């Protein structure tokens, strides 16, 4: 009998739900947490893209995004490096197009809310960015003429093109048709806005003063969040609802992309932007605010800077950093904890210092980062398209 009671008591203890606890966040901390929302943000369109938001263009863009025939090889599509089941990244350290590439494929979720596209920010819109891999001989290796011919040769693509732009793919020069295709792809990518996360529920509960709901957020994640906005100073760059300021930083990473080759990062990105025929300042743009492109400044410190990535669904986009040199979130946190300040530019920013985190703190920070995720970012399925052609 006594043994039965003891077992019953043990069973009750094991079955009892963990007691929900809410840390005593200060008013300043609550304000800092509130600034990481709300989510989702107001809808946005691809800059300089009159097709963005149009159903026909999105359908065409979706078809083109998954079509390897846009590459003359017939083997590389946008979706080769931006795989829906991998959060529109590819899970590789460095991507593989027609040749081995030097950088990690960034996730495309929420890319429409970015000021600059790609790790070096060499494109100022989604449509402009879409042209880069199309024409890059290491990625898809296409030409405008090939893109025009590929669309014209397929009855469904030609039909969707006609429906979107009101003309045949061959009705104008090849370059104009390629830009149209890029705008359709941009219109599709602009629809990828990630779902809400456990962090968003916590943040909203805190803002409306619902302590009970807020306390459901795991305690390790609460402690990690406190580190993120406090001692870690992570929110200096990873700010706002996207957890990124959309700008560029040198974070003390090894900078050789291959033996003897240094990736210039943002410095090369600004140079490429200025050399591009497809920016928001070009005649190809459909009337956008080009303030960032017009005023961006090339500085020596841009060398070795890479874009501050959004941390939304970061747990689903390993490996990390511009070249995938860090395999796990734990590695990323360790990097900032043990930062090699000698590696940073002598004339660069004085923000980063080794955080010197204890093991518990590192685990808490990772626990927080994992709450920025929603299962929906790896379960995207293409919408059904009406018949055409």
């Amino acid at each position, binding site marked *: 009998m006594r043994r039965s009671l003891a077992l019953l008591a043990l069973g009750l203890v094991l079955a009892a739900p963990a007691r929900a606890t809410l840390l005593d966040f200060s008013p300043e901390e609550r304000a800092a947490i509130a600034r990481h929302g709300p989510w989702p943000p107001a809808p946005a369109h691809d800059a300089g893209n009159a097709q963005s938001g149009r159903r026909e263009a999105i359908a065409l863009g979706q078809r083109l995004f998954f079509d390897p025939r846009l590459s003359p090889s017939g083997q590389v599509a946008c979706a080769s490096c931006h795989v829906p089941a991998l959060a529109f990244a590819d899970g590789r350290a460095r991507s593989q197009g027609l040749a081995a590439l030097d950088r990690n494929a960034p996730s495309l979720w929420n890319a429409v809310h970015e000021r600059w596209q790609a790790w070096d920010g060499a494109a100022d819109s989604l449509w402009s960015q879409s042209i880069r891999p199309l024409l890059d001989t290491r990625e898809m290796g296409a030409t405008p003429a090939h893109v025009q011919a590929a669309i014209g040769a397929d009855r469904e693509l030609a039909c969707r093109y006609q429906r979107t732009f009101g003309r045949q793919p061959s009705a104008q020069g090849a370059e104009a048709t390629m830009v149209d295709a890029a705008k359709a792809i941009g219109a599709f990518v602009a629809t990828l806005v990630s779902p809400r996360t456990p962090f968003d529920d916590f943040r909203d509960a805190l803002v409306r003063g619902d302590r009970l709901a807020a306390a459901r957020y795991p305690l390790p994640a609460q402690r990690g969040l406190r580190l993120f906005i406090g001692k870690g100073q992570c929110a*200096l760059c990873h*700010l706002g609802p996207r957890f990124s300021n959309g700008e560029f930083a040198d974070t003390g990473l090894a900078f050789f992309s291959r033996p003897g080759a240094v990736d210039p990062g943002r410095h090369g990105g600004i140079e490429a932007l200025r050399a591009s025929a497809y920016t928001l300042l070009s005649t190809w743009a459909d009337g956008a605010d080009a*303030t*960032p492109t*017009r*005023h961006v*400044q090339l*500085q020596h*410190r841009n060398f070795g800077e890479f874009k501050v990535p959004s941390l939304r669904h970061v747990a689903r986009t390993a490996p990390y950093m511009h070249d995938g040199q860090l395999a796990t979130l734990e590695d990323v946190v360790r990097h900032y904890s043990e930062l090699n300040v000698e590696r940073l530019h002598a004339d660069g920013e004085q*923000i980063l210092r080794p955080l010197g985190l204890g093991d518990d703190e590192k685990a808490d920070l990772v626990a927080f980062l994992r709450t920025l995720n929603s299962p929906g970012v790896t379960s995207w399925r293409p919408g059904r398209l009406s018949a055409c052609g």
Partner: protein
Amino acid sequence: MKSTLALAAAVCAGTAVAAPCGEALDAKARQRVESGELVVAWAPRPAAIPLDKHFQLDIAVCGAPVAALRVDADMPAHRHGMNYRTTVTGAGEGRFSAQGLMFHMPGRWRLIFDVDSGGRTQRLTQEIEVR
């Protein structure tokens, strides 16, 4: 009575009404910085400087004829400036507009006004907290 008057005079001296400058700028957002005779009044658009978004400044320079004005900003504690270069457009009679400013981090920023006047450049600065 004499001491009361002296105190009033001192208070008046301490709070002397500054010469007007930039009265046409948005009064709710207007700020001013001065050095000697030179006054720079400025008002951001939008009125509250946004974090991580571009904004512009409407500017009035008073106290001396201005040959040219340059506007910049930095974060002294972080030892970095903006990622964008401003363009300053003159509208005559000491009025200017500066486009292309963007503060990409929260914290203490320093606005820098370099005023070319009378054959020399005077730098006026003003620190502001951005959240």
